[in-house]
């Protein structure tokens, strides 16, 4: 240490002590904020679990709602309804989203590719209630009444940009050499895309679909004037249908304690499905990417 310059830092008026103090305080604040940001999540999940678990029973999953005051009754109709409406959304959004992602990937730098990417970003920012009005105008009005189909349509439009963007990001992670290799072997571009690139990116595409489902399965706003609700089991997609988020909304704003309790239990079912799916999707991607050594 003897060969160090002898100028001491103290000879310069650097306020080092004060600067260090400011440093510690400000860094401490960001850390506290990070912890604080997690509190609402923990609070919500814990409260929903505690309130919801009180009334959960096997028949809650299978029964249809009973009149207020009559004991029992469940949300079987809403569970089936949510599955059908989200299923319709997937049938529309998944093929279109993947196809558009392949186009966007193939033509990333071309004008149309850029326009499509921009439209995707814009579409993902449009409020879900607007998608509800859109589905109302395009499906409900011509049909003449509310229907599961219109609800699925609204959710499909919400889901499309999520599937598209994740699929495109995953295609971009596939090594270029795979694509070049396939083309060099004489495979046509469509075969390269469908049989080489897409399978290589498939785990990521599945993640995108799962994230999309977890997002739209919790959407209540567009359901109000599309799928609407139905107190009975329904399988006809041209008819109104109950969904989990819409059921929670209707029960929560009702004046009855009985329905408030059911809203908490329904929320528990919904949150387990949505957060479970979301978390599974994230962990799956991380594990997959690590395994493939692409990240």
């Amino acid at each position, binding site marked *: 240490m003897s060969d160090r310059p002898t100028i001491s830092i103290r000879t310069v008026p650097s306020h080092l002590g004060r600067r260090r103090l400011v440093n510690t305080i400000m860094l401490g604040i960001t850390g506290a904020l990070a912890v604080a940001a997690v509190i609402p999540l923990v609070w919500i999940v814990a409260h929903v679990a505690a309130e919801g678990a009180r009334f959960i029973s096997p028949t809650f999953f299978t029964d249809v709602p009973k009149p207020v005051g009559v004991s029992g009754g469940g949300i079987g109709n809403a569970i089936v309804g949510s599955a059908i409406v989200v299923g319709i959304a997937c049938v529309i959004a998944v093929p279109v989203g993947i196809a558009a992602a392949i186009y966007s990937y193939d033509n990333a730098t071309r004008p149309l590719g850029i326009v499509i990417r921009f439209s995707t970003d814009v579409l993902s920012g449009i409020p879900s209630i607007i998608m509800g009005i859109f589905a109302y105008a395009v499906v409900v009005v011509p049909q003449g009444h509310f229907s599961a189909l219109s609800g699925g349509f609204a959710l499909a439009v919400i889901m499309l940009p999520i599937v598209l963007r994740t699929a495109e990001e995953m295609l971009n992670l596939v090594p270029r050499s795979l694509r070049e290799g396939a083309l060099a072997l004489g495979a046509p571009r*469509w075969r390269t895309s469908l049989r080489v690139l897409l399978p290589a990116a498939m785990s990521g595409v599945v993640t995108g679909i799962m994230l999309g489902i977890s997002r739209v399965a919790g959407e209540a706003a567009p359901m109000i004037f599309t799928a609407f609700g139905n107190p009975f089991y329904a399988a006809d997609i041209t008819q109104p249908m109950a969904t989990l988020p819409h059921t929670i909304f209707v029960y929560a704003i009702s004046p009855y304690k009985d329905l408030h309790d059911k809203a908490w239990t329904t929320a528990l079912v919904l949150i387990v499905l949505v957060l479970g799916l979301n978390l599974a999707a*994230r962990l799956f991607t*991380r594990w997959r990417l690590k395994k493939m050594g692409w990240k």
Partner: protein
Amino acid sequence: MQSPRPSGLKPLGSTTGRFRRWWNHGDLPFRAAIALAGILVLVIVLAIGRELWAHSILPRGKFGLAFLTTSTWDPVRQEFGALPFIIGTIETSVLALLMAIPAGIGVAIFLAELAPDWLRSPLGTLIELLAAVPSVVFGLWGLFVFIPDIVKPLGDTLHSAFSFVPLFDGPVYGPSRLAASMILAIMILPTITAVTRDVFLALPRTQSEAAFALGATRWEMIARVLVPQSLSGILGAVILGLGRALGETIAVTMVIGNNPDLSASLLHPGYTMASLIANEFSEATNEMYVQALIEIGLVLFVITLLLNMIARLLVWRVARRFAGGTA
């Protein structure tokens, strides 16, 4: 992309042969199909605008621009003015931003610069999960837990301390603009955090290393190098958060109290464009009423569309500026 035909090969003679060759090769139909899917995304955005425009023709003809500046909302007398709802939407969203911006940036700084490696990814995941909680569950929790436990006591305190300020005047309600703003702040925090963190991570390290080399403390590096450099990206994050707050429907509908009075007090119930549509759409009984609600949707659509375009351009510009510099 057309593959050039090898010059030595002549096209097959017969039309059917050429068709089969073209079809078996298959690139053209495939490209047409995926291009169609891509164009569909653009078409949907345009179609949403067109449908909203076409289904709001009645109130536009009757009220014109006065729709945006008058405050009577009376379905019985067929008089519709959107001002209270526009103000309510902007007021709650801006207030939510004021709360969420400092917190969101702080969390992003922690995630990008300070968190130890073992904490970084679980904490990031938890905050992203907060964004995945369904809006209706936020509303339920807000209505029965957050309002009685936090908002009402806070409102009482603010009222007794600052009742001379119009913002905290009048009787204290639980469901209020304050409640809606606070719920919105929690809901948009993950959006602001995630985008800001990504912007921080996209910046080249050379500048921050130079700051350290000059003797800056970690905080000085963050405050004088990292944040100023990321400013346009942070602005993009803020606008994305604003877009989400403006359009948020169910949670706000459940906690804002749904009252169209034009009162300055944050402790008073309010109303937003999105919550008005959610509350009244399925009860709207005549064409003029439905179309007035759709016109409100149109206003909301135009605002969020513009905000999103601006935000995306800002975030893209940051990404492009540093695209080559990260290596």
